[in-house]
């Protein structure tokens, strides 16, 4: 049983580009045995939040509790070496002057509880077996490959069965194939051990794949927290919608039963904060958009010009120009579509998400393919 709560965390930090920002009023709870991900672009404060949980940063305000016991805040600060956690760093931080065995045994040898050497050996072997590195105990650590170092870092973090596992972009230094495999292994391992986990990444695919819950961070704040499916399907802001996946953004104005845009009204459900007249954006994912060669008799159909239809094996990647807007769609690979032909796009009302237009725009929206012709 390990529950992590973070309340009103505050900490100023420098971003990768050298600016100074603050983690501001960040609050969340990680339930026991859950995989919780802080997702956001670089400099959003996710790593600062994680490091505050580890005790590597001293928060300026807020309270962090593990199982009700205060780790920091309320005038207390438990140093990192007295917190019951394991951490995996982006660079793995494998100590090059130690063997594989010594790396994993280190937490057992320096902690408060010091098991006997026989016990240490057993625990190290167990941890190595957990990550599939059994038999490599005597290897000097620098001789391991990138993927093996990654596993070694994980074994080292898990060896003393901590209450909390912290992972700081652990997969970002691996090549694509290995990253794919490691994230499956990591997911399986976490589900099996049921260890409470906080994970930091800028890769939305990783976040959706691994997590029970995802918190999207932007400029030092959590802007949305939900289960992966809801983050993707029900983004609460243009930023979240853009960050967690591809999509088309339609600018308009809320009206009864939908949003006024594309010279008409796109029918969709409106969240309560969107009163008629309010500026609104419709977000629609490419796989939700249907492309028709002839106009179907359903709601939300718009005539357009097919600008791009690229064959990608399992689908056709389409860009349809409707008025001044490019709508991104995925069509069935068997469809016979020609560039520049007239098509009709259908935006199914239940797949269109209306969000309040807070002025934020993804960069892609301002790039107009039409201008390049």
């Amino acid at each position, binding site marked *: 049983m390990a529950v992590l709560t973070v309340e009103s965390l505050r900490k100023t930090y420098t971003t990768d580009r050298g600016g100074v920002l603050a983690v501001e009023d960040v609050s969340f709870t990680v339930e026991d045995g859950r995989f919780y991900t802080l997702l956001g672009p670089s400099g959003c404060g996710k790593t600062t939040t994680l490091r505050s949980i*580890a005790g590597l940063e001293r928060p300026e305000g807020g309270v962090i509790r593990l199982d009700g016991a205060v780790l920091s805040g309320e005038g207390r600060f438990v140093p990192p070496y007295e917190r019951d956690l394991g951490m995996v*760093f982006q660079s793995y*931080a494998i100590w*090059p002057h130690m063997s594989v065995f010594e790396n994993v045994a*280190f937490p057992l040898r320096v*902690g408060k509880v010091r098991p006997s050497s026989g016990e240490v050996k057993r625990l190290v072997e167990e941890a190595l077996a957990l990550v599939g590195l059994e038999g490599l105990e005597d290897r000097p650590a620098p001789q391991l490959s990138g993927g093996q170092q990654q596993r070694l*870092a994980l074994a080292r973090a898990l060896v003393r069965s901590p209450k909390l596992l912290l992972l700081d972009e652990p997969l970002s230094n691996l090549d694509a194939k290995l990253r794919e495999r490691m994230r499956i292994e990591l997911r399986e391992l976490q589900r099996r051990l049921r260890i409470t986990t906080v994970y930091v990444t800028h890769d939305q695919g990783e976040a959706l794949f691994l997590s029970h819950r995802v918190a999207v961070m932007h400029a030092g704040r959590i802007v949305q927290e939900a289960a992966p499916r809801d983050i993707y399907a029900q983004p609460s802001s243009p930023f979240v919608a853009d960050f967690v996946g591809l999509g088309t953004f339609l600018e308009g104005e809320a009206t009864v039963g939908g949003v006024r845009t594309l010279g008409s009204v796109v029918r969709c459900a409106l969240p309560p904060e969107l009163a008629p007249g309010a500026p609104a954006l419709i977000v629609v994912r490419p796989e939700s958009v249907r492309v028709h060669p002839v106009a179907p008799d359903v709601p939300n159909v718009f005539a357009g010009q097919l600008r791009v239809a690229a064959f990608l094996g399992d689908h056709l990647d389409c860009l349809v120009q409707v008025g001044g807007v490019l709508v991104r769609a995925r069509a069935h690979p068997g469809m016979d579509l020609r560039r520049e032909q007239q098509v009709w796009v259908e935006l199914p009302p239940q797949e269109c998400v209306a969000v309040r237009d807070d002025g934020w725009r993804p960069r892609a929206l301002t790039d107009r393919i039409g201008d390049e012709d």
Partner: protein
Amino acid sequence: MVVPALAALLLILLTALPLGMLAIGSLQTEGTQGLTLANYLGVYGDPRTYRLLQNSFLYALGTSAVAILLGTSLAYIVERTNVPMRRAVFAVTLVPLIVPGIVSTIAWIYLASGKIGVLNKLFMALFGLQTPPFDVYGMLGMIWTEGLHLSPLVFLVMVGSMRAMDPSLEEAAVTSGARPLRTLRMITLPMLVPALAASMLIMFVRGLESFEVPALLGIPARIPVFTSEIYLALRQYPQDYGVAGALGMGLLLVSAVGVWTYGRLTRRAERFATITGKGYRPRRIDLGKWRWVALTFMVAYVLVVVVLPFLVLLFVSLLPFYIPSFDMLQRLTLKNYVTVLEHPDTLLAARNSLILAIASASITMALTAVIAWIVIRTRLPGRRFLDLLAFLPIGIPGLVLAVAIVFELVNFPIPIYGTLAILVIAYVTRYLPYGMRTNSAAMLQLHRELEEAAAAAGASWWITFRRIVVPLLWPSLVAGWIYVFVVSVRELSSSVLLVSPQSVVISFVIFDLQVSGQSTAVAALSVVLVVALVVIVGLTQGVSRRVGVREG
């Protein structure tokens, strides 16, 4: 491709030839034909040589220990703790790197000589002592003076290696449950071991090679080491080339072993150290109340290494004649500066030093740029050998190089003895490794395709080199140029055997004045030189930083 071929040839002439001549010269004796082992038998059959060896080792080891201890502690305090004023200290610590060894040695004579040392007088007056507490004329004094002088180098190396260390290595230990002291002992220190071992070796070799301290302190104290013996063999009449050659070969051997071990060690260290190789911002340790202890250490270091030596020279330079008494403060005069600056020898030496420094810096950087290109860009069979040749001089003590060049001139009577040309040859040879290091590091950063694109566009080798490679290397060429310029002005150990009355250089004039006992003039000239060098480096640093923007 004529230029690379000529550069390679020049490199061989500069390095392999003098070493060959040294080896041959050490096997010749005056009056007899052919080669003989007589010199070696004479020198290494003499028990005094083993005392020499013992002195040299003790001196080099002690020097390296003092330098390592001071440099490493300072680096840790400045780089890894939250001690106040660390930025200012960092800048000030670099000043001794500019100050010539001859100047700092002379300064320590006036500070801590038993008879005339200002510090001795001060401590005796303050604590009512009957005998002077310090004596710079002795093994300890020699070790102290040289160790202090070398410590900023260790400081720089250790700062570099601390910055190259991934802070998450320590953080991983802390989150594993290790307390700060244990982290320091089990992670930080072991990670620094390769850098420590490497600087220990380099300092050892530098100690063996050093000339100023053994000549000015060791000879009067009757503590002979290799360098001072070689110097004496060639400064006595008749000169004993055989002894100088045999001693030179011995010193060369020892320092070559040191450099070779250093090379092996650093190559292993590369495998050992950081995974990513990027620069980090290390975590600083909160010292709490100990900050003030650390600050005291820093201030004491700056006092001893920078402030006191400069102040004592300034003091002596303003006296009509030297008596170590504070009553003299009422009789300060600028007369010495007038004397020194009006003296024709000084002016000649200043002019010579300037010409030499500019020429050596330019030739060294140009030559090593081409050599670095050959080594890094071509698949030429001999390129590894060229690389080795260009690094070789790092293991050749300046004095030994001078002996080798003297032998060269004895065997090939080219009429350049006593000219500036011979000094340029010596300096360029000595500083090849620095030029090589700067240029090859920069060349490795350049993508080969940049040159291939020029070739594809129809440019010849020479045009590609001039229009693509040189402009891209420019920032590091400038940085390396400044460095070679400064070390050329400081150079003494090979100049001392190669100068003639027409080719005197400023460091030699200082040495000569000191030996002939003109203390106040020496001090004035030293002050002028140090101020000039600091100003030059300060100005050029500003320039090179602007040039270097492209690098960032």
